[in-house]
């Protein structure tokens, strides 16, 4: 008897459900009464998984095969974490059962973007897609197909299946972290890592919290309570040009000028140094502050150059990602061992003249001395002027920050998503580093944008040895060229879990290139008919995170959690693993075997999880699938209690910087901090040429908008801030009926009352926001908290709510050359800078 696929799935579901689900999750209704009256009710715990960094456990109550209610599972071992969750997770049924749910595969019939499709079977759609892909690969090479899975953390298994396929097919692949502009480039530059952050449970352990450009109260909803607790136990200072919900909760709000945080950081650093509030011992042992810099070339002094050290240097072997630098001790120049963070008896603030091996003499100074000289430009008076913050306030805050340990700096995306965002991060990193607030509970600098984090070694699933991943920065794709860009270009887009036609259509490039036919194939995997689906040639309906198995992780907390199916995939939707497998076998029958073809998709997913955990390394040692089925499990770290405290190992166990940032091997990123220490001084040629060897303040828009078109200075006077909305996770939930009801169904533009009055605009007016790249429209709201010169728009509205004029048609895919001197995908890469955008606003025609 041959089982129909559906029956098989149902049986499989029932079998795996009963075997896989812990019986704790099966709660019959009120015992006997249930048997008599209600159908068996199940409660299944899954993990809500959009790219919000929440990764919150939710219980789905299932009746008659449908999810009837959702509520937070609140089952994290530390009570302070519970319950997590938010209004979007609580209304997820609106997406699962809403009218935009994709039911079956679609193949385009009308022009791109028209939304005209015909229904197809999976086989038909897969055959079609495989055929088109093979054509393109034959014509342009396999790298002409580019995959995007957005950010990894929300689904190691399912997203991993797409990545695995890309590797085996030798396709190109974009990294969601830099595509989203979530990559704060100061991290690899200063610490040699992708990004680091404290888990939010650690926030209340800080005594002084400084938040720069992060609206935590609105964007880190499940963790906001930790910030309020931190405020209760210490002091919370929020730096934000606008008065937002987080500013409202702060003890002190510093209304600094937009994009002036580098000046602020340097001004604060100057006060700390001038008043000797820095931790000299820390700087000596863990940073590049004692290292010597040549005053003639600006390059750091290498031991091999120094007459007294050349022989000793040659005798020591260091890994190729290290260099041998020089410091000064009582006797003169000394060789620094980059593989040892032992205490060194170095002079911190010094200069000297050194005899070089080639016979010449050179004047050198320590990085610390260079920094002090550098900071001469950042007096309180000048910084006050640059930031528009009173000098006394800056001084007082600097003293408070330096004398309240632990100090925690939270550095947010709306701060660093500027062209010179890396300078701001490097400047602000001075605060915790100068004061020794690194690697300790409640201390450090953290960024929390994007669920980028790969918490352990995923190579086993993501990168099979037979495969090869060709990473291409998304910004190169958008502009059509770049370093290491596929020779014949990228001609096919294959994506899931993302909505680039709304969210990454900068300067409308994507739609233009699709309309012109330059991009020959667009395939999208999603569970709702988004704008990107509308622009696709083939659409595959996806199972949601209540309909399949997956493994998730995030940055706000170190728990691994399962997604578990509460219901069968709706209509004809399937999991990514299944799609990858079925597509793989059509592309090349030899690669089908990499996707567990012998297992039913759910069983395959579970197997992948088991293997991932077994082979994940120290972080997953002892963690099993059975444990995960019972609830969230903390990954291991080197900090006590497995706490997520960045650089704990570096500071306490003196392991050199950097720690590894999965998935690349250590050597790929360690070369960013060749000294094995925290580095503020960067001496690559381009850093020196740009005058950014140390963090500095650079004028906003001078290198972007004003450089490209100087007339913009007078034409477009408003900074365009496309902030996150309370009601959406980027563009997920844009069509959520309750979220839209709560917003009065209106996309909004926020202006300062004076700016509105000058443009003769009144609240409630339909206004058009425009520049020379594009336009969008919204209803005007006067916002007393909005600073003059700023136009705030809540991003994430699907194009259909904006008359098909997307807010991203106004933004630009600027690329800072310094972000191209190395390439490690998602770690050192050109990264999107949304805020680097000027606009004007006028009344829209009805």
């Amino acid at each position, binding site marked *: 008897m041959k089982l129909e696929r559906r029956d098989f799935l149902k049986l499989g579901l029932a079998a795996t459900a009963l075997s896989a689900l812990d019986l704790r999750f099966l709660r019959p209704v009120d015992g006997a009464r249930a048997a008599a009256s209600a159908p068996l009710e199940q409660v299944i715990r899954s993990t809500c998984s959009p790219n919000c960094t929440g990764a919150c456990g939710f219980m789905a109550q299932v009746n008659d095969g449908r999810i009837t209610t959702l509520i937070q599972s609140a089952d994290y071992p530390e009570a302070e974490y519970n319950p997590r969750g938010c*209004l979007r997770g609580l209304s997820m049924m609106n997406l699962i059962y809403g009218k935009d749910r994709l039911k079956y595969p679609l193949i385009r019939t009308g022009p791109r973007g028209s939304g005209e499709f015909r229904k197809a079977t999976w086989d038909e759609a897969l055959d079609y897609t495989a055929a088109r892909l093979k054509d393109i690969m034959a014509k342009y090479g396999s790298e002409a197909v580019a995959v995007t899975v957005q950010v990894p953390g929300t689904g190691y298994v399912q997203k991993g299946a797409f990545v695995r396929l890309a590797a085996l097919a030798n396709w190109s692949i974009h990294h969601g972290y830099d595509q989203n502009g979530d990559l704060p480039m100061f991290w690899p530059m200063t610490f040699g890592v992708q990004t680091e952050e404290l888990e939010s449970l650690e926030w209340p352990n800080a005594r002084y919290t400084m938040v720069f450009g992060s609206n935590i109260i609105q964007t880190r909803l499940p963790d906001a309570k930790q910030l309020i607790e931190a405020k209760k136990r210490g002091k919370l200072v929020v730096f934000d040009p606008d008065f937002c919900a987080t500013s409202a909760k702060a003890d002190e709000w510093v209304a600094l000028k937009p994009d002036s945080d580098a000046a602020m950081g340097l001004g604060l650093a100057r006060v700390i140094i001038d008043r000797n509030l820095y931790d000299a011992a820390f700087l000596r042992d863990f940073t590049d502050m004692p290292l010597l810099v040549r005053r003639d070339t600006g390059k750091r002094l290498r031991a091999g150059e120094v007459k007294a050290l050349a022989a000793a240097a040659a005798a020591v072997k260091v890994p190729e990602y290290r260099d041998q630098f020089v410091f000064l001790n009582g006797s003169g120049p000394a060789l620094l061992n980059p593989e040892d963070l032992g205490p060194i008896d170095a002079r911190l603030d010094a200069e000297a003249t050194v005899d070089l091996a080639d016979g010449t003499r050179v004047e050198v100074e320590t990085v610390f001395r260079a920094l002090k000289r550098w900071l001469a430009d950042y007096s309180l008076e000048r910084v006050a002027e640059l930031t528009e913050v009173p000098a006394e306030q800056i001084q007082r805050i600097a003293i408070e920050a330096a004398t309240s340990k632990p100090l925690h700096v939270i550095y947010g995306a709306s701060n660093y998503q500027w062209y010179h965002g890396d300078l701001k991060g490097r400047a602000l990193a001075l605060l915790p580093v100068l004061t020794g607030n690194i690697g300790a509970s409640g201390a450090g600098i953290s960024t929390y944008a994007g669920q980028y984090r790969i918490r352990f070694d995923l190579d086993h699933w993501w990168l099979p040895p037979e495969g090869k991943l060709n990473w291409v920065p998304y910004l190169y794709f958008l502009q059509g060229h770049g370093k290491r860009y596929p020779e014949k270009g990228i001609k096919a887009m294959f994506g899931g879990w993302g909505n680039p036609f709304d969210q990454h259509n900068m300067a409308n490039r994507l739609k233009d290139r699709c309309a012109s036919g330059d991009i020959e194939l667009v395939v999208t995997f999603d569970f709702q008919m988004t704008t990107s689906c509308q622009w696709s040639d083939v659409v595959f309906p996806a199972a949601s995170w209540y309909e399949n198995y997956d493994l998730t992780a995030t940055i706000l907390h170190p728990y691994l959690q399962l997604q578990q199916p509460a219901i069968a995939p709706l209509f004809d939707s399937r999991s990514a693993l299944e799609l990858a497998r079925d597509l793989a076998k059509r592309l090349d029958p030899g690669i089908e075997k990499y996707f567990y073809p012998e297992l039913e998709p759910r069983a395959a997913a579970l197997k992948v999880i088991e293997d991932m955990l077994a082979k994940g390394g120290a972080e997953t040692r002892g963690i099993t699938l059975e444990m995960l089925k019972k609830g969230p499990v903390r990954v291991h770290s080197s900090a006590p209690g497995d706490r997520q405290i960045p650089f704990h190992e570096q500071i306490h166990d003196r392991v050199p910087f950097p720690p590894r940032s999965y998935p690349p091997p250590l050597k790929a990123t360690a070369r960013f901090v060749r000294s094995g220490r925290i580095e503020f001084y960067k001496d690559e040629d381009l850093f020196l040429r740009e005058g950014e060897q140390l963090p500095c303040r650079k004028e906003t828009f001078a290198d972007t908008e004003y450089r490209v078109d100087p007339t913009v200075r007078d034409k477009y006077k408003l900074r365009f801030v496309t902030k996150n909305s309370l009601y959406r996770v980027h563009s997920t939930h844009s069509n959520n009926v309750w979220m839209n009801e709560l917003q009065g169904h209106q996309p909004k533009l926020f202006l300062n009352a004076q700016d509105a009055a000058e443009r003769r605009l009144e609240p409630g007016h339909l206004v058009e926001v425009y520049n020379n790249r594009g336009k969008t429209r919204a209803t005007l709201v006067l916002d007393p908290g909005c600073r003059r010169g700023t136009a705030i728009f809540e991003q994430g509205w699907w194009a259909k709510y904006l008359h098909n004029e997307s807010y991203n048609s106004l933004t630009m895919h600027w690329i800072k050359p310094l972000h191209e001197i190395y390439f490690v995908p998602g770690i050192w890469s050109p990264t999107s800078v949304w805020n680097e955008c000027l606009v004007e606003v006028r009344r829209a025609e009805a």
Partner: protein
Amino acid sequence: MRRGMVIDLEKCIGCRSCAVACKQHNAQPAGNWWNRVVTPGSDQHQTAPEKGREYFLPIHCQHCQNAPCEKVCPVGATFRADDGTILVDYERCIGCRYCMAACPYGVRQFNWEDPEQAMSRYHYQDGYAFGNPREYRYQGRLVYAPVRTKGIVEKCHFCVHYLDQGLDPACVRGCPGKARTVGDLDDPDSVVSRLIRDKNGFQLLPEKGTRPNVYYLPPKRKEA
């Protein structure tokens, strides 16, 4: 035993998760929200009324001890549970809406049309309906049903249908800020009583004499 709730406005981040949890668990159709969260002084939620000043306020049935709605109901459909919760008997309500006129907080919602028809305005697939699917009777009276009928009144009932299971109301469980606490106001040592005492708990519209069982803790003063 007097069941009461304390909402800490310092912890309230105005996310409206409680309003959504309530809506969801109680199957409220389009246009009806028993629970709402607002930004006092502002036209637009989470836009400050004035630069430098913003806080958030959740409002739903206050379960008053001197409830005007209970007193005006001609048929006793609005009644008081043993723990002080004000409930509506869906089978007895005649839909005169006197209680709606009587409530100074404006918390009551009426089924102006067939709720299934109202629900259809959300355009779910295949007749999908959300909400706790089981009816609940308090002392035999129907105080929760997943589908109500047109022409009757409804409102927050402190999730009486979860009480038996020892569960807190949906708004409490759904609040990521942990701003809400439920407890016995008659017990001076209960968490809620202590919160009110220690943190200057206040009521809304005390001058109306309704004596609500819902208290608020003021947002903190800034002592920078």
